[in-house]
């Protein structure tokens, strides 16, 4: 162990002035990150703050537009993940990248299998895999010969880490490794990470879960909107301070006025005790005239809930009523017949048929239902309502994100949907189009629609919602009134009991500044 010789503030890894844009949209601006040898360094921030992009630049998946990376004081440039691996930087990505039909050992040494004169030396490969698993204290639970697909997710995660360790890294990046783990499994993982630190490894830990950051890390770099806010010692901050660093920003955007109480009408969609997959015990009412904001961390089940309400996944437990009538939704088709519409999170892969025209995409649902009265829907009138101009023969892939969203919205107006679920309605949309989508949503609510709006952007949730439902780990963690603060939402979403001893109200003051 080199601890004794090296000065405490030696920098093992430095990233300086990192800029990155995608298609002209800046994702990272002038970001700096410094890691000391043998520390666990957290990179945290809200969804979309740029954490994952920064890490992908570090390991050579993306090239930075500007800035430099130094390892042990020497400038490095990784054009390919292989180069980063060779230099001692390994990453375990958020999504597992394992071959389920191959064994643990085969996965760890994929493409680098130890060879005999002819063919692969299985014995050596399995022995080395065991040794790596032993470093994680996992050799007794995971056999190198087990098929990866048969292992529970937590153990697959360990296989990924073992694979990363097989490159003998000096810096190990863990990108949200706990997203799919139970609390017990998280504790076990943390023990293992601490042991790795004791062996001298530097760990970059990406997460937005406050509890994990406090439990595990030595220092924290906070990113917000693609910029570094600050780097702090974990021991010197409390929840309130950290939440403030993460969300403390100005509302830079005008939102249409909220619904007045008399505008809010009867319940259109209601679920009780709903569950399926990761979701459980969800109670939710959507009322005519009201926009309900649905907040929660990535992985809390927001999109899953949207799909459940839309019949895209079947409800395993609980009951659902539309306009007071109990319904079983077995397909989106049935949900659409009940007057429900879903604007998906990912417009390109789930919302639109990109090579079809504005006309064909707008009329897709009406045509699919093939029912009489909707036949004479005037396309012109529809597109006027969503304020979309231009030729209806254009293929939608040539439209801007905002206009694409308007096409999807027109589709649901055409079916006469009275319950609209917006999943990240303004993701990837520029500011001007954002405002017009927001105004459209409010107009629809005023016309009597019940709206559920899922958003990772807390200012949007706060600015738009008449009521805020916060999800955590697959169920409703709490409901907040329209004027809730970002800090209140974050506390519910992270489930962090307040560490500072200050009441929620006080935290709210900090967060809303």
């Amino acid at each position: 162990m080199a601890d004794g010789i090296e000065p405490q503030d030696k920098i093992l890894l430095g990233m300086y002035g990192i800029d990155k844009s995608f298609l002209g949209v800046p994702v990272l601006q002038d970001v700096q990150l410094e890691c000391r040898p043998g520390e666990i360094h957290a990179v945290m921030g809200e969804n979309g703050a740029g954490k994952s992009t920064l890490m992908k630049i570090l390991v050579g998946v993306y090239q930075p537009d500007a800035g430099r990376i130094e390892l042990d004081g020497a400038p490095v440039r990784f054009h390919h993940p292989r180069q980063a691996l060779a230099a001692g930087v390994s990453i375990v990505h958020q999504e597992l990248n394992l071959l389920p039909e191959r064994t643990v050992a085969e996965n760890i040494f994929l493409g680098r299998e130890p060879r005999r004169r002819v063919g692969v030396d299985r014995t050596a490969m399995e022995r080395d895999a065991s040794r790596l698993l032993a470093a994680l204290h996992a050799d007794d639970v995971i056999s190198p010969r087990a098929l990866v697909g048969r292992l529970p997710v937590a153990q697959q995660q360990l296989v990924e880490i073992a694979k990363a360790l097989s490159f003998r890294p000096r810096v190990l990046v863990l990108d949200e490794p706990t997203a799919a783990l139970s609390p017990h499994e998280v504790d076990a993982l943390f023990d293992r990470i601490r042991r790795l630190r004791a062996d001298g490894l530097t760990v970059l830990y990406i997460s937005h879960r406050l509890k994990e950051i406090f439990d595990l890390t030595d220092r924290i770099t906070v990113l917000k909107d693609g910029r570094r806010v600050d780097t702090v010692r974990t021991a010197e901050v409390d929840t309130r301070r950290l939440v403030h660093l993460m969300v403390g920003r100005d509302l830079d955007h005008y939102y249409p006025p909220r619904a007045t109480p008399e505008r809010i009408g009867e319940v259109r969609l209601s679920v009780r005790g709903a569950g399926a997959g990761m979701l459980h015990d969800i109670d939710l009412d959507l009322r005519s005239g009201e926009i309900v904001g649905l907040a929660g961390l990535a992985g809390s089940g927001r999109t899953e809930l949207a799909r459940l309400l839309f019949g895209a996944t079947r409800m395993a437990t609980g009951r659902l009523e539309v306009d007071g009538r109990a319904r079983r939704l077995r397909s989106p088709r049935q949900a659409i017949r009940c007057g429900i519409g879903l604007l998906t999170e990912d417009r390109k892969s789930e919302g639109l048929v990109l090579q079809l025209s504005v006309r064909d995409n707008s009329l897709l649902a009406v045509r699919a239902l093939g029912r009489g009265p909707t036949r004479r829907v005037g396309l012109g009138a529809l597109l006027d309502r969503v304020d979309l101009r231009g030729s209806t023969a254009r293929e939608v892939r040539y439209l801007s994100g905002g206009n694409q969203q308007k096409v999807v919205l027109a589709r649901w107006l055409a079916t006469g949907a009275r319950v609209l679920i917006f999943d990240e309605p303004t993701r990837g949309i520029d500011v001007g189009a954002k405002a017009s989508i927001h105004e459209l949503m409010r107009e629809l609510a005023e016309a009597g629609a019940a709206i559920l709006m899922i958003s990772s952007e807390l200012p949007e949730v706060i600015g738009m919602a008449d009521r805020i439902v916060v999800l955590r780990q697959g169920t409703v963690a709490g409901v907040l009134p329209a004027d809730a603060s970002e800090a209140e939402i974050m506390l519910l979403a992270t489930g962090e009991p307040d560490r500072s001893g200050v009441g929620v109200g006080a935290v709210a003051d900090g967060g809303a500044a």
Partner: protein
Amino acid sequence: MTVTAPPPATAAPERSASRAWRLLRAVPPIWLVLAAVIVLIAWRNPTFVEPAPFLAFLRRCAPLAVLAAGQVFVIIAGEFDLSVGALVTAVVVVAARLSDGDAGNTWWLIPLLLAGGALVGLVNGLVTTRLRVPSFIATLGMLLVLSGAVFLWSGGAPRGSLADNFRQFGRFGVEIPGLGQLPYAVLILVAIGVGLWLLLSHTRFGHQVYAAGGNPRAAGLSGVDVRRVRTAAFVISGLSAVVAGVLLGGFTGVTAEAGVGYEFQAIAAVVLGGAVLGGGRGSVGAALAGALTLQSVFTLLNLLGLAKSLRDAVQGLIIIGAAAYAAHRLRRSG
């Protein structure tokens, strides 16, 4: 000295030239290729473009064109149908046995064959969408099942013969003064072409075929029953194979090899017409043009005295070339 104003004299021709260019670009390129090949044939054999030989050429094209017009539904919906060639053979062999030269059998035989074709398409569709067997495998399996069954049933040498009123669809036509004989096959081709074009481009079902192939997830989330739409596309392909079989049986007579290779020719024709394997793009008109082009290229090769065995090689090159061109266009515009 001013350099800002462009000389108006050159502007006008430029504009009209660019308009002509735009018009040209709006035409699916396969029609231009078809025109070019026909010009080449006419250059070697000027009588080709006279009415009677040209109608005979169209009659020769009809089975393939009908197959392509059915296949294009399956391909736009994002699947393949490799079973059509074997289905054509089955239609010819089964029809010969059941018809047995008796004109009185024809009236029930044709609906029976159509029902059989629809059933084959239905099975293809259900195996693909319900059992989730990739259509490439499912229809390849169907191809083998059908050819095996035909062989078993016929013992390798088809028995029976087609009644004259059955053969007339592929063989004869209506006399038109001045033009000679207008083959029934051409009339049937036109009717089916127009019918399928209307179905694909002007009905709700047709729009759903494009959506189901273009983005099945988005289509499903918009209420399109993707599995049903795809199954229906297979049924259409099966029905078109029966029509092609009836035409081919009348034209070439009864053999156990009647439909061999037609599945690949049909797919080649559709790809030539600019459809993208994987779904979402294509049209009936362009598929028909693709079929005519393929057939005219074969005619041209014959005229040039190239061996018939070269056909397959040329066909392979054409498929690869057309697919590469389509991919190139997509990349450029997307």
